[in-house]
């Protein structure tokens, strides 16, 4: 039995509007973390809120642990779904202490049980010393962990997290990511995690679902999504690919800079686009080269060069941090990837 099953989920905010969530289907096994990732406004947060019962779907159904919680005829309110929700702004109750916040979801249980559960949870997130504080006296990372403890305390079947790290500073975010993933794995929680940050999604998710325009473009393991993007959008969003124009020929794929092996069987002379990331491109300075450096971005550990080919095509390439070449240098660029590249048949878009 799947812990979460979502089928043909559709939601519109106005009857005539384009659906914000459009025929979305996916399922989750127990203990799995699924990251919903996509640009803002792609419908990932709405999907999460539909699962939580904070919005009503227009069609489709949602089942948690085999029980239908939303369909055309059924709508179980959020408090009866057995979920834990971690909000973007953490939403700690300002009038309650840390202890009372975590205990909020435990109403109706015995006092000793509440006491021990809350302290177990606070120990898990490393905040048992702050139980008597009020939320306004917590740092961003602390309130983040209290929010997590509060969501986990009632032992929910499913944990839903809506961009939980977006309100934290960048360095804090990296630290919290690791801590939170460890906690979720320790408690064997089943999690749906929403983020717009592709790197965060790759780190947090056992699987990823890439959203665009209310639909899932691709769903799969992080490595699979990164190496074999199913669509041009996924290739671009996950790892910022450039698209190198080319032509299928009997020897392979002919591009402006290299001849590449053909992985798909394509008709002769079919126009294609090859997704190349900055780590797939290498170049050497060459007076008679095929490209010109038009910009360099120093990133500390490495340099990113922006190259322009004769046709006007733009490519990016990584170089080590010691390799400093002035803008305007003519170079010879080539595809240096040691793995097959993703090739899209170019249709008249």
């Amino acid at each position, binding site marked *: 039995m799947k812990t979460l099953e979502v089928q043909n989920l559709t939601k519109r905010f106005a009857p005539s509007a384009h659906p914000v969530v459009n025929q979305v289907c996916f399922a989750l096994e127990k203990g799995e973390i699924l990251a919903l990732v996509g640009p803002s406004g792609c419908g990932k947060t709405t999907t999460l809120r539909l699962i*939580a*019962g*904070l919005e009503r779907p227009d069609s489709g159904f949602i089942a948690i642990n085999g029980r239908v919680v939303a369909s055309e005829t059924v709508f179980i*309110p*959020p*408090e*009866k*779904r057995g*979920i*834990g*929700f971690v*909000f*973007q*702004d953490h*939403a700690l*109750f*300002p*009038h309650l202490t840390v202890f009372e916040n975590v205990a*909020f*979801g435990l*109403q109706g249980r015995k006092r000793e049980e509440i006491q021990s559960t809350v302290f177990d949870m606070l120990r898990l997130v490393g905040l048992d010393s702050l139980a008597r504080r009020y939320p306004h006296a917590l740092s961003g990372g602390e309130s983040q962990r209290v929010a997590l403890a*509060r*969501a986990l305390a*009632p032992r929910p079947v499913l944990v*839903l997290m809506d961009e939980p790290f977006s309100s934290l500073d960048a360095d804090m975010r990296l630290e919290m990511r690791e801590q939170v993933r460890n906690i979720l794995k320790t408690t064997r929680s089943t999690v749906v995690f929403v983020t717009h940050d592709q790197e965060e999604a790759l780190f947090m998710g056992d699987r990823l679902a890439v959203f665009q325009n209310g639909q899932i473009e691709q769903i799969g393991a992080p490595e699979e999504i990164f190496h074999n993007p199913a669509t041009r959008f996924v290739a671009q969003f996950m790892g910022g690919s450039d698209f190198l124009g080319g032509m299928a020929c009997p020897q392979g794929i002919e591009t402006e800079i290299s001849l590449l092996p053909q992985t798909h069987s394509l008709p002769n002379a079919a126009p294609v686009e090859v997704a190349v990331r900055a780590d797939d491109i290498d170049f050497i300075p060459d007076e008679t080269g095929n490209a010109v450096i038009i910009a360099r971005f120093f990133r500390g550990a490495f340099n990113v060069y922006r190259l322009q080919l004769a046709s006007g095509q733009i490519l990016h390439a990584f170089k080590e941090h010691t390799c400093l070449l002035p803008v305007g240098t003519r170079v010879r660029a080539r595809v240096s990837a040691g793995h097959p590249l993703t090739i899209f048949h170019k249709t008249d878009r």
Partner: protein
Amino acid sequence: MAIPLVYIFLRALGAHPEDWQRLLQTRIWRLMGNTLALTTVVTCGTLVVGVGMAWLTERTDLPGRKAWRWMLALPLAIPPYIGAILHLTLLRPRGGIIPQWLEGTFGFSVPIPSPVGFGSAAFILIAFMFPYVYLLSGAAFRSQHARLNEAARSLGRTPWQIFWQVTLPALRPSLLAGALLVALDVLAEYGTVALLRYETFSSAIFAQLYGRYDRSAASILSGVLVSLATLFLWAEIKFQGQARFTQMEGNWHPAPPTPLGGWRLPALLIVAMMVSISLFIPLIVLVTWSIQAVFDPQTLAQVFRTGSQGFANFIWNSLWTSALAALLAVTLSLPVAWLSTRYPSHLTRFLARLCQVGYAIPGVVIALSLVLLFNRYISFLYATPLLIVIAYVLRHMPQAVRASESAIGQLSASLEEASRTLGRTSLQTLFQVTLPLIAPGLLAGGALVFLTSLKELPATLLLRPAGFDTLAVRVWIWASDGFYIQAAPAALLLVLVSALPLSFLLRREQMFR
């Protein structure tokens, strides 16, 4: 909310054409001129005084700014008609305290300007209404980011140019809001203009209702008055547009004060004069008379009569009607505010706007429409104190709606959602999360309604059952009969009782922390 308003218009339109004819020929134009002149002068006057005082206490190194802030805001606890009573007793040509003193000093009667009429009415209204503008512009001065000034200076503007090009334009929304508040209050003001014998729509309607009992003429005048008020309301919404320049970001810090230098003493004198006129002199006079009243056995007996005419009874009547009105207004405002903040749509915003209409209906008009409506349709409530409470609720609903809206608006929706996902039903969420968190905001709304209801005069006078006296009514009746000293303890008490909710409200403001 809409029923009284629509009803008044219907009555006005349905009035006999001859009545219209008569009024158009004789009174309306003069009343219109009078009302507009007073409104314009008072609005401009309060803007100048209010912004000036706010600038001095917020943006300069005026000594004792913190104390001045309180003293400049507290006149709100003194209803303008009490100011007018004091003005008259101090200045009236025969028997006034100042003319008498002058006569005693110089041995002959010194001619002084007439204490009644346009000038006096404008003076009194400005003196007791400028705190509205003062509070709004003070808050705006305060919320303005110091960086704005720094940015303007770095772009080559002098401090003088900055004041006109940056500071003042950013103040515009608050100034408009303040001007509207004052203008609508002037339209609704009855006590002051009646005492100082300057006829406006409000006092004319009151006279029609009270003396001649000509409901048809009163309806027509009310229709015109409400149209005028609605026009103001509409103009404010139109000019305000969507512009709400609030900039209280996390890294906000106040602009550095402008050094006054040699202007320090004159500035101090001006502020002290303003505070004297609108706070110290009224308080001193009231306190003196109250002491006199206590030491004069005859007056004391008059003041502290027992039974339904007793002093305790006036206080009780004032308190319970105002408190009940506050409770009702806040309770009724909750669903409206809830809908307009949580589910913003054309319909819910229209509902919230509709509740603002109360601002535009002066007390006399509310009284008139309630008299007409209840007399005809719900007569068992007619001539009960509940009618007064209903009038207060209708008139002061906008304040409650605004307070509730801001309280709910500050509450993040995710808090309620968090409660739902943690197993609470929507009703449990309301009582365990929402209400505890918005309670301070609701209390503030209630305090505001309580305060303004306590001071309300014309509707109370017109709607009260015979023998039902509140503090405001008693002050008014004693004063208009000439028993000023007798009225003083009640007036002082009214001011002190009003000062309590007022100071609670002021303490919530950033300016008074």
